[in-house]
């Protein structure tokens, strides 16, 4: 039997319809005007021991809600959910013993105390014996240089250091499954790479199952063999990363700030690009923020440098940025049938 078994899982929230302004806020006090939101609308998948699974989707897709049900914080509205054969919510304390959890935006460490104290407290909470504790602390020291941080107050750690400590802490009791909810949020490239390699090592060490939610497709590319894409509470794709990789791996978005931008500029740009690179150019154009135009390019069909050269010589460009394709764009492409 698989370690995590989920079948037709749903979670509904009742949300008060809030009205605008001060008078609206007052009227809300007496309002019974609720609507039901289906945060998770019938999700099914199985996860085997030892897998690293990327659980991704845009904001509000239902990722965190699913994680919170798997960790036993939230009670599912309907469907089947078992971790290691038990329903997490009904066996919260028992299940917590076999899980490790990191919520990227909050810490499980004691803010005011030196780092080592949090580990000592966790040792008692999870009833980790001294031998295992010493062995794991040595391992964390090798991986992230934890010893140098032992006496440092958690509040004085940098975000990256704190995250490395938090991830280490979630592996202290040798859990069967670790949930990492946005572990690289707000971190710069070099520390992201470090965190990815640490996660990979920890997974290898005890064959720990890892479920990773992230906005950063780089995380998924670096860590996961399998990826589950969720949007609006439903699963869009569940399978090998390779097929999805082809989808976003070759794509880059060219962000342009064009001189004297008007509504017509967008049309002119589209027209000229089609003229130059032909109808099957694999380029899509959208206006995002004010003054920024996004040109998303499939490099398998048209080299980015050609497009950049062409645009620079034909338009007055104030500023240019090149970014990897965003989660939202991947999801849009999946909707458009890119994986069919």
């Amino acid at each position, binding site marked *: 039997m698989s370690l995590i078994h989920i079948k037709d899982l749903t979670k509904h*929230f009742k949300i008060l319809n809030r009205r605008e302004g001060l008078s609206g806020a007052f009227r809300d006090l007496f309002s019974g005007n609720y609507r039901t939101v289906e945060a998770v609308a019938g999700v099914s998948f199985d996860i085997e021991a030892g897998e690293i699974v990327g659980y991704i989707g845009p904001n509000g897709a239902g990722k*965190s809600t699913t994680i*919170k049900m798997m*960790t*036993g*914080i*939230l*009670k599912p509205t309907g469907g089947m959910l078992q971790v290691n054969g038990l329903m997490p919510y009904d066996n*919260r*304390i*028992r299940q*917590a*013993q076999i*899980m490790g*959890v990191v*919520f*990227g*935006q*909050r*810490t*499980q460490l*004691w803010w*005011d*105390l030196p780092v080592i*104290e*949090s580990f*000592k*407290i966790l*040792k*008692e*909470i*999870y*009833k980790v014996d001294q031998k295992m504790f010493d062995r794991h602390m040595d391992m964390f020291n090798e991986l992230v240089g934890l010893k140098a941080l032992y006496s440092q107050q958690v509040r004085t750690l940098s975000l990256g250091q704190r995250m490395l400590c938090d991830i280490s802490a979630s592996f202290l009791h040798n859990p069967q499954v670790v949930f990492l*909810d*946005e572990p690289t949020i707000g971190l710069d490239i070099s520390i992201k790479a470090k965190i990815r390699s640490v996660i990979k090592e920890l997974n290898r060490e005890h064959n720990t199952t890892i479920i990773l939610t992230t906005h950063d497709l780089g995380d998924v590319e670096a860590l996961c063999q399998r990826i589950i894409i969720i949007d609006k509470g439903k699963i869009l794709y569940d399978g090998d990363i390779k097929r999805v990789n082809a989808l976003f791996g070759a794509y880059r978005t060219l962000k342009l700030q064009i001189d004297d931008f008007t509504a017509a500029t967008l049309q002119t740009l589209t027209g000229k690009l089609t003229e130059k690179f032909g109808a099957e150019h694999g380029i899509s154009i959208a206006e995002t923020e004010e003054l920024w135009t996004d040109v998303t390019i499939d490099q398998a069909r048209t080299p980015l440098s050609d497009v950049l050269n062409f645009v620079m010589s034909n338009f007055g460009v104030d500023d240019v940025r090149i970014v990897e394709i965003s989660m939202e764009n991947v999801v849009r492409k999946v909707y458009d049938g890119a994986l069919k």
Partner: protein
Amino acid sequence: MKSYLAVLRGSFMVGLVYRFGFLFSIAGNIIYMSITYFLWRSIYQNRETLRGLTFDQTYIYVALGSAVFILLKTYVDWQMSYEIREGTVATYLTKPIDLQFYELFMSLGFFLMSLGAITIPTILLLVFVFRIEIPLGLGLAIFPFSLILAYLLSFCFDYFIGLLCFYTESVWGLSITKEILVTVLSGALIPLPFFPDVIHKILLWLPFQAIYYTPLTMVAQPNLGWGTFLPMLAVQLFWVIALFTLTRLFYNQAIKVLRISGG
């Protein structure tokens, strides 16, 4: 149990980090004790006793009340409101611990901290500077036990308000209302015998009086004896068990409405 002791140790250490904040509370206590001294002096002018209490008895009661006032505040309600709004409660719920005991032992760390940093210095000030003679005897001997029960009771109230935050998210109004109710109805400011007879009788049937009135009366009127003290302790114990159980049951309901936004 060992895991909760580790939590207690941790929160005591957090208390040590903020030890200077505690020292200011002593200054506040000195001002309060001076004001109440003159207040009650003028009330007792030309009177030997009031409602059966002498000035000394009343002043010991009120001054000791101020010494234990901060001690018996757990701040668990404010703490939990913060944890629920910020979502840190999620990191507790994913650990093999019971939320009620976790919050209790967290607060006990601060209890020990303020016992050493505020209550004991204040009592020493009372005895050596204000020259108050605390009567030695049976009352004083059982006072510590009564105080622990009072703390557990105070914790139950605060934990209950904390659980309400699962519904309301904000704690302001609730906590302030609770604070005023407990302070007045428990006899923390004014000994219960000074209330009108009917109200006094009603208050004795409510749990509030077991927080301040019971332990303070034991010290202020130590000659009441076992015959009075034992039932008082029993009532305290009854309320602790009752409220501990009720809040446990309430937790099962409150946890269902939990929504942690973001992250």
